[in-house]
């Protein structure tokens, strides 16, 4: 059952990352990868909230491990950071790494605070 819920959550999360990335990237001209930044921060917020509730096993499997896990990504984040360096946009690469981690952590804390307020 857990396996099914994780697969189902990820089957929603991964295409939502792709669609969000497209929607965000279509709205700006900068080389900064705002699309991946957005999904990683959003995923951190929701998972921070779920972990602090704390959500039950089934909800955590579907929405946490599956959905948030697949919505957010480290591989795309890592690849983009390296490609920015290769393209000579070193400061953007450093900014991407620092801002993604700072905002992701901040979002996880905000999620936990919201969960405690609920």
């Amino acid at each position, binding site marked *: 059952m857990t396996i099914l819920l994780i697969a189902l959550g990820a089957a929603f999360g*991964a295409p939502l990352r792709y669609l969000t990335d497209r929607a965000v990237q279509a709205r700006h001209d900068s080389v900064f990868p705002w699309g991946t930044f957005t999904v990683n921060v959003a995923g951190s917020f929701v*998972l921070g909230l779920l972990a602090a509730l704390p959500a039950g096993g089934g909800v955590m499997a579907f929405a946490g491990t*599956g959905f948030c896990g697949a919505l957010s*990504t480290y*591989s795309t984040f890592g690849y983009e950071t390296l490609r920015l360096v290769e393209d000579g946009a070193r400061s953007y690469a450093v900014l991407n790494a620092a801002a993604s981690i700072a905002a992701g952590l901040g979002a996880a804390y905000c999620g936990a605070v919201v969960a405690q307020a609920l």
Partner: protein
Amino acid sequence: MPGPPVDSDVDLHIAEQRAELRRAPWGTLGAISAGGALGALARYGLSSAFPYGPGEFPWPVFWANVSGCLLIGVLMVLITEWRPAHRLVRPFLGVGVLGGYTTFSTYTVDVQRAVEHGAPRVGLAYLALTLAAALAAVLTGVRLTRALTGRRAAEDAG
């Protein structure tokens, strides 16, 4: 010809990727969905095999993120610099499998939980080590694959 994409999920500077959702919406989204489910299950398998507590170093997630970064480097060089791949390879393997296998949310929440459970040093070490190892892994994947496929391309030409 535009250089390799910056965003491995979807790079709108590349005409083919810009058009793929219009051209094959269900094929593209279906491949991403299926790949994402498989990747997430692989990550879950790893976490179940090597469980960790809230104050402990999350090794399974660390290795999932680092190995996923190595593999995205290999994959992207293969499909953007070596040989053009089928149009569903990037959505399925890159966006789906590797995107579902690696995770940023579990990374940030595990750092936060380590701090909350009185292990701030573990949290900080995990934070820094994952970033350093993941970036080194992408670089290794890209360089190694370029070296191997460059040799192969030269052999083909010769």
